[in-house]
């Protein structure tokens, strides 16, 4: 493709310089150029949430975000959630509650759940259902995903 431009991205705390066409999405750059394949593409038009990443801590659809528009943001993908070899509590809760089956929606779901808990550490069941309703899952029926997130509600305040 023509007219590619150098784009500097900050992903999971690391700087990357890539050549990207103006119409290339962040999702394409993550998956195809940086081999960060944990972020999934299931609809490519912003409906399913499988490609959810954090941009400056806020959940965003990587398929709707142009790579060139991500330059000034700190991007966090599923690969960036583990710290010091420890799983993020959301990841651990999803595993413990079997809040995953085929796993294809899981990275986006984990990121969306982390964003929810970051902004609202003690969500009610209904808040969880509303906030995560933009992340589609075809396998689980959502019950065990909700259970996983509920198990973390209030955890930081010791209200579990």
């Amino acid at each position: 493709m023509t007219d590619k431009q150098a784009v500097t991205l900050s992903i999971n705390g690391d700087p990357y310089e890539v050549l990207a066409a103006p119409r290339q999405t962040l999702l394409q750059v993550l998956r195809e150029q940086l081999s960060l394949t944990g972020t999934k593409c299931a609809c490519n038009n912003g409906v399913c949430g499988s490609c959810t990443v954090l941009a400056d801590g806020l959940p965003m659809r990587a398929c709707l975000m142009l790579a060139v528009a991500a330059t000034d943001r700190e991007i966090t993908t599923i690969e960036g959630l583990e710290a010091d070899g420890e799983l993020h509590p959301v990841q651990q809760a999803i595993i413990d509650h079997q809040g995953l089956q085929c796993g294809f929606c899981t990275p986006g779901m984990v990121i969306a759940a982390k964003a929810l808990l970051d902004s609202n550490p003690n969500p009610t069941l209904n808040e969880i259902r509303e906030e995560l309703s933009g992340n589609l899952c075809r396998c689980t029926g959502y019950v065990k995903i909700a259970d996983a997130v509920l198990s973390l509600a209030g955890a930081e305040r010791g209200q579990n």
Partner: protein
Amino acid sequence: MSTNMAENQQINPIIGASVPRIEGPEKATGRAVYTDDITRPGMLHAALLGSHYPHARILSIDTSRAKALPGVKAVLTGADLPLNYIGMFIKDQLPLARDKVCYSGEPVAAVAAVDLATARQALRLIEMEYEELEPVTDVEEALEPDAPVIHEKRDEYPTMYELPEEPNAICFTEFMEGDPNTAWDKCDAIVEDEYLVPAQYHMYMEPSSTVAEVDGSGKVTLWSSTQGVARSQMYTALALGLPMSKVRVIAPRIGGGFGGKCEFTNQPITALLAQATGRPVKLTFSREDDMTMMKRRHGGKIYMKTGAKKDGTLVARDCRIILDGGAYADESPEVSPVAAFFSQGPYRIPNMRVEAWSVYTNLSRASAFRGFGNPQATFASESQLDDLADQLGMDPLELRLNNALEQDDKFFCGKTIEKATMRACLEKVRDASGWAAKRSGGRPAAPGKKRGIGMAGMSHISGLAGAGANVLLNEDGSVTLNCGAVDIGQGSDTIFTQIVAGALALDMDQVNFAAPDTDSSPYQFQTSASRNTYTIGRAVKKASDDVRDQIYRHAGEILECDTNDLELRQGGVVGVKGVPDAALPFIAIAGRALWQEGGPIMGTHNWLYTPQDRMDPKRMLLRGFALMPDGIGIFTFGAQVAEVEVDEVTGQVEVLEYWAAHDVGKAINKTSVEGQIEGGIVQMLGYALTEEMLWDNGRMINPTMMDYKIPGMADAPYKIHSLLIEEAEESAPFGAKGVGEICAVGPAPAIANAIKNAVGARVAQIPATPERVLTAMQSADDAD
């Protein structure tokens, strides 16, 4: 003491434990590798051109401009491919259309290029000339004598069964029992209706994807999102004209299947592109391509009439099922027979006639989809039972209890019921849901809304086809299981690991689950027919038992004791019963076998699911079915209750709470079983309320996730109560039967019956959209 007695006395506690998924960490961290995550050196990217027309002759294809585009490495059309038709029961399909197209979206050309953007650009440069033909989009029109013929060469295709005369018919099946012609005179109440069911898209989250490459010897290797590596291998070999020994298929992680990735998806065309270019090729569908080019559930029409005596005893049923098989047969020749088989439901109906058709239409091809024809038939039959109960003034649950199949009854077509648990399912769901109180208008609804409760009973099977398993004792005393089974997300890798661990008293991390690979795995049919836990699990269990017996032989010689005096101790130890000090770790046995005596220890079991009896031709009329449902599996039963709220102004339906009682034999992993049930119910909540593929004169008009709505978290009830009935099935591994499909059979009628209970109106067409609910309410008002 026999081995069976020992097992009955002491089942290892890992069996029944809700251990987390073995692949949970890789999925939760994004490390799980799905097909599209694979990159091979020098890999090209492919895209397919779909037909613009639903029914047309191809007059010419000009690919010269596409081939001239820099970066394009191959452009294939139907004329470039060997004329090898593929298909399961009737070989009616080519990887790319040749001469004519039979559905809008049917692949007509394939491009491989250095990147996806170039491949897609090349598609736009292909010039097609078509002669449009009249499309057939309605199942009854397809059977009209003057209907346009979709497959002029149908009778020349290789088939495994007898084709009906009607040129657009894929198959016709008729079952009859008793005397349905005269039985109507004995009925005090008769209900008759026509039911419409939609084409439902699988919407696995991972679109179909294959990576193919050819080595220097011409051997083709595929990594593919498939439900069965041996099936993908067989179809690819057939399409390429290669022996299966020249095709290898490996399954990475699979992002859901639900039947849509059975048989073949895009494996053959990807392999053909790799052959044509000599380079690895990746073909991953966009969601729109997957929705228009791939498969779906059969929509169709069902006419049903049921009669009963005053006391609620079912007497007779007549049923005609016409399923829309779409442009190519795929598994249709078995889907409609299975629909026919389950149209009786889990009840005694002494006089019954059913005919079932699958017909060709100019819509995308229909295929296997969770339930395999049963959800369609059961939507009709369970809706009708409620209307019959209303007419008789009976409680619908009582009506079902009165007629539920018992142990001494035969299933439809004279089949033996292994374990009759229908009554237990009904009683359990009745008690757990508080049925009686709620049915009589127990709880108040929100303002402007009406609340209702409804139920459905259901039966299905678990079984089918050939399965193998190998369990190898490694040098260090751990084991490797290789069974070639594909975990499409339902959790079978974990279940099989538990079975091995349970059979050999090993810890979970002492069992390695080998990835399915046709180069190393034993034969495995595919992940379908609720067969993994039961059919494959049995092979896994017996292969593990084989390893145990070999370990016992070594241990008996070393410890100088009878093998009957040996026992397994947790963590990979064999010892003498009652003598704690007399013990050997598996590593000692493995070392002896490898270096001193006997050779490597590998347990093996291969078997074919075979029914204990065949359909009884003496007691009934049987016409026009191929393999199934005669040898489809052992029976399973279930009963479900839905509580809904209907908005009287908008017609919007919300499912508030759900109860599901299922006979699972034995839950190997209880949380995993619940996950299957919850997922099946919510998937079919979509079938009941929102999901419908729509075509305008043969062109699909909603091929996006935006316009085809599956349930999100806010649409699904959080309170789904899985009520497990565990009566061990003797032929099953630790007694366990499959539950993956039966849970999806009941939701549509249970929800439709709850809607009727709420607003007094029968919705006989699903999905029960607000418009359809309001229309039904209006009709019910007019009737009053």
